[in-house]
């Protein structure tokens, strides 16, 4: 089991008023899965993703990553997991402005303990998302779809086990979104675990398993038969 959540509770303290966002979530994710977490806004799906992605710590419960309980990990150890084991793709891309595509993709390597071959790794990752010819473009000179592909390349560059995608198509038109989903499917086929967070069922149906969350609890967890899955094609832009 790659990811194992045991009775995860997350409270937020807003000046003395405690809001419980996750009410004891249990979830297991195997290596190589493609799961979508869906739910309306305010359901706690973002909090769940932040917790699984080590951006936040649970208030209660245990989180086993690759069999290790992460409860007592230091902030620096969590930063290292984020750097080496996890890749993030955000809705709003979060590329550094006034910086080249290549430098953006190389950014995680800057924080990595591995000091060699940064540029080569970044180029390989950009080839994988079909942007091998855009290396020296500034991040603000490319289209939204291309930006998200740069973000995927950035998530890939440290060769992580899991890729988290938080509404990756939310800011894209359908053509660009289709390309992005195609890339995620391809990465899953190559053996990477994909965890997708979305409120859009059409996007979620790319996954092999859909977890529905509502009011901080998992209300449904079902595999999607191959016949019901949606597959996207790469569309040139």
């Amino acid at each position, binding site marked *: 089991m790659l990811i194992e959540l045991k009775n995860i509770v997350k409270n937020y303290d807003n000046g003395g008023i405690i809001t419980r966002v996750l009410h004891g979530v249990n979830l297991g994710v195997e290596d190589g899965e493609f799961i979508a977490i869906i739910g309306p806004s305010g359901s706690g799906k973002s909090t769940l993703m*932040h917790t699984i*992605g080590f*951006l*936040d710590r649970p208030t209660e419960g245990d989180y086993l990553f690759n069999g290790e309980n992460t409860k007592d990990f230091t*902030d*620096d150890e969590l*930063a*290292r997991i*984020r*750097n*080496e084991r996890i890749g*993030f793709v*955000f809705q709003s891309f*979060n590329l*550094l*402005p*006034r*910086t080249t595509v290549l*430098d953006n993709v190389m*950014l*995680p390597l*800057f*924080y*990595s303990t591995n*000091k060699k071959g940064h540029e080569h790794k970044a180029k390989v990752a950009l080839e994988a998302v079909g942007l091998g010819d855009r290396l020296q473009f500034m991040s603000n000179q490319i289209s939204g779809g291309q930006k998200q592909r740069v973000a995927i390349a*950035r998530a890939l560059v*440290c060769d992580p086990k899991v890729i988290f995608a938080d509404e990756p198509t939310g800011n894209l038109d359908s053509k660009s979104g289709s390309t992005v989903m195609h890339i995620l499917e391809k990465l899953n086929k190559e053996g990477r675990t994909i965890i997708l967070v979305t409120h859009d069922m059409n996007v979620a149906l790319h996954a092999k398993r859909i977890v529905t969350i509502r009011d901080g609890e998992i209300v449904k967890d079902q595999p999607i038969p191959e016949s019901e899955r949606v597959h996207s094609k790469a569309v040139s832009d």
Partner: protein
Amino acid sequence: MRNFLSDIKVTIKNLLARKGRSFLTILGIIIGVSGVIIIISLGAGAQSLVLGQITKLGTNLIGVLPGKSNENGPPTAVFGVQIKTLTLNDANALKNINNVPHATAVAAFVNGSATLIAGRESVDTSVVSTDGTYPKIQNVDMAKGQFFTEEEGNSGSNVIVLGYDVATSLFPNGDELGQIVKIKISNNNPASNSDVGSIPFRVVGVQKKIGTAAFQNQDDQVFIPFIIGQRQLLGIDYVQFIRIKVDDAANVKMTMEDVTRVLREQHNIKNPNDDDFDVRDLANAIKVLTNITGTLNIFLSLMAAISLVVGGIGIMNIMLVTVSERTREIGLRKAIGATRKNIRSQFLFESIILTLSGGIIGIVAGILISYLIAIGARFAGYDWAFIISPIAIFLAVFVSILTGVVFGLYPAIKAAKLDPIVALHYE
């Protein structure tokens, strides 16, 4: 630091991505640092100018002034007080070779200003009344004729030596030697008819053009024998100052002691605290001036240091703005594996590199401006030395790095503390 060089490279890249802002940020540091460099350079230049002016007067000189004053302070006479404790008898006693064996020349002085008339021309100038030994004490370059002799000086002959500017004013056509110049007798009573009281003098020499020394135009003055100037022109019985030339620099100290002893005998002084005169050598004068310019330097450098602090606060301000503007970037960096330490050193680095480059630009600008000032001063006729102190440069670099650390630390800590989730969703 994991990889120092690549850290620096990335930081410089970050800063260059915002050239305009970066430059405005460090403007305060540039001004502060160049201010320090300029002030220290100007101070050193002014000091060398002052010292140059003093040494132009000649070395191995001892001055005797009336009145007692603190040896590290300026002489009492500077404050405009007329003290009458020094007399011609004192000067004569000092002239006695048995009393002061190492003195090669002694000259007494009284100065005044008066109107000189030659034919239709007249000019106001300063009149120096002194002895015929003057050329032995001070380098005198004569354009025409010569300085009056010791005999002419001692006997109080009606002879006069003209400074270059005075000569050209009174005798536009030249041919000054042997001509008669009248000096109006100074009279404190403005109602008196000054036409009656004028003394004729025969021109025996004209000085070459000298320029400025000791901050006085040496060409706008005339020399007459001491006795006639003191008694007839000014109507006083005291000496304003005495200058003594010593045969060798090594004997200056001993001669000063001789002079002091002679004057105490003359004035019947038993207790040194009762001294009513002041014996100084040039080294002393130089020390006094160095003290004054040194104090001035410290004061001005403090002002410049304050401007550096103000510049540093400016940096802190901008860094804080930068941190909140780049909140999302910080969140992203944390999400992809940056530790608090990484973020802190990134921002600290940025501020240090900012202030350091501000310091370097400031040093270059300061040197350039100091150089231009030196050229300007030389063009205006001053003997100005262009001096850049390596200590000032070292200090400027050190202080600008320090400013970066001190004023960059708080924003850097603030950036490092940001919660990645909050930072990522910051708009």
